[in-house]
C-alpha cells in the first residue's frame, strides 16, 4: 500500500470538498473511522467523507493544520498552571503560533471542529490560545473581550430603543 501521496477529499457541511493527504487525514479521529469502515468494505472509494458539522472555511484550516502536523509535529509544554502569557513560549514550532494567531470567532469555530473531528493536537493548541485570552484579566476585561465576540450582547439595548421610536 503506497498511500503516502494518496489524496482523500473531505466534504464539508456546505458541500466544499477539500483534498487532503490520506496520511494527514488519518490524524482526525472521525475521518480515520470513516476510512477504516470503507476499507473493511473493500470498496476503496474514498469520496464519501462528509462532515456534517464543519463549514468549508473551517475545514480548510483544519486540513492545513493536519498536513503541517504530519511534516512537523507540534510540541506543547505540559507544565500547568501556565507561567507564560504568550503562546509562543509554550507552543513550538513557530508555524503553530502563527496558525493560532486568528480572531476569536475563528478560534471558537476551530475548537468546535477539532472537538467534533477528534484532532487532539489541534484541540490542545486552540484551548491554549483561548486560555491565553482570559489569563491575567479582571472579570470586567474578560466580559469586555467576550462581548465583542458576540454582537448579540451589545445589540438588545439598541433594538429596544428602535422599538420605542417605532412605537412613537
Amino acid at each position: 500500500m503506497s498511500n503516502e501521496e494518496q489524496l482523500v477529499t473531505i466534504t464539508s457541511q456546505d458541500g466544499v470538498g477539500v483534498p487532503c493527504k490520506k496520511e494527514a487525514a488519518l490524524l482526525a479521529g472521525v475521518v480515520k473511522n470513516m476510512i477504516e469502515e470503507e476499507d473493511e468494505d473493500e470498496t476503496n472509494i474514498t469520496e464519501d467523507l462528509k462532515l456534517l458539522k464543519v463549514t468549508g472555511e473551517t475545514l480548510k484550516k483544519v486540513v492545513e493544520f493536519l498536513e503541517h502536523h504530519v511534516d512537523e509535529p507540534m510540541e506543547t509544554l505540559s507544565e500547568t498552571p501556565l507561567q507564560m502569557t504568550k503562546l509562543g513560549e509554550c507552543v513550538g514550532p513557530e508555524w503553530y503560533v502563527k496558525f493560532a494567531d486568528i480572531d476569536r470567532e475563528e478560534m471558537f469555530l476551530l475548537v468546535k471542529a477539532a472537538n467534533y473531528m477528534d484532532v487532539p493536537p489541534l484541540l490542545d493548541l486552540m484551548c491554549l490560545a483561548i486560555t491565553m485570552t482570559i489569563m491575567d484579566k479582571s472579570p470586567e476585561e474578560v466580559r469586555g473581550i467576550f462581548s465583542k465576540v458576540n454582537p448579540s450582547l451589545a445589540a438588545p439595548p439598541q433594538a429596544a430603543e428602535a422599538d420605542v421610536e417605532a412605537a412613537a
Partner: protein
Amino acid sequence: MFTKVLDGTLSESLQQYASQIILISILSIITIFRKELSCNSVYLVDKQKPNEKQKIRHRKLDSHSEWERVDFNSCPLIDGLSDCVQIKCLTYLHPSEILTLGSVSKKAHSLVNKELLWYRIFLRDFAYVLLKWKYGIEKVNSLRDSHWNCPEKIVSLLGRALNGIRHRRNVPSMKEFYLVFAQTWSEFIIAGYSENPTLVSIHGHVFNITSFLDEHPGSPETIIMQGGGKDASSFFEAVGHSKSARMTALQRLVEIVDLSCCRGDQSLLVGLRKDYHDMNCVLPLKRSKVRKPWALSHLRQKLEREKKAMLTQARKQLSRKMAARGQINVLGNINVYFDPICYRWKAWYLDLDFQPIFMDNIENDEY
C-alpha cells in the same frame, strides 16, 4: 501749594503701595465670597444639595443601564463550546484565575463550580502526594480500615475517598476540598511521623530529616518533640538557622516542594512536586516570616480559628481521659491537624517511647 504736596505724597505713596493694596483687596474678596468660590462640600449650600443628589442618582442609572447591556446569563466562552472543552481550557489556569473568571457571568460561575473541573485541577496539583509519595500512600492506607473499604489500586482509592467524603455529614464540594487540601495537606500527611521517619514541614515544604538527626547540632529529642510530624516553621526560624544550614536542608533533605511557597512569585505557581528547578528560592536564605501556601484568606482564617478551638478541646479530652484511666504518659504537646479526606479535625501525641498515639474523635457532636 500744601494740597499739591499732599497730592504728590499721596500719589507717590499710592504708587508705592499699589501692589499691596491690590493684593489685599483680592484676598478680601476671596475671603468674603469663599463659600461661593469653593468646591469643598462643607460649604455646599442647601439649594445645591438636591442637584447633587439628582446627579448621583443619574450616574447610578447610567451605570445601571451599562450593567444591563452586559448579559450575565451568557458568556460566549461558555455558550459556544462543549463542557469538556471549556474545562480543558480552564485546567491550564491557576485556581485564583479560575475563581476570578467565575465572577464574569452566571454561566461562567456555574462552569467554575463544576466538580469535574476541580477534580482535574486536584489531580494536576495535589494528587502527586497521595498517589506517588510513599508517606502519602501510607497515610491514605492507614485511613482505610477505619473509614472505607478500598480496592488495592490507589487511584480508584482516591476516587472512593472523594466519594466517601460525600457520604458524610459535612459534604464539601470538590472546589472546597481542593482549597482546604491546599492548606492542610502537609500536617495531615506528616502527622505522627516524628521518629523514624522524621518528617517536618517548614515554610510549607516537607523535609525528611531522619538521616540527619544525628548530625544535627541540636539534640534529636528536641527536634522530635518540637518539629517531628508537624509544622515547625516558627521553631525553625526562632532557633535561627544559618544560611549554610538552610542550604544543607535544600540540598539533602527536601521531600516535597510546595510550589506556591517558592519565592520569585510574581508568576503564579501552585502544586506539589519532588523538586523544583531553582532550589534556592524554595526556602528563604535568611531569617524571615513564615511562608504559607496559596489560599483564600477567609478560608485560612477559618482554619486557623478552628485549629485553636480544637487544640483546647483536644487538651480537655486528654485530661478527661487521664482522669478516667489514671496515668497517661504524654511527651511534649498534643497536636491537632485537619484531615481533608475524612473532613474533620484529629489529634495526636507522643508517648514515652516516641510512638504516636492518634485521637480520631476530638470534635464534639454539635460541630
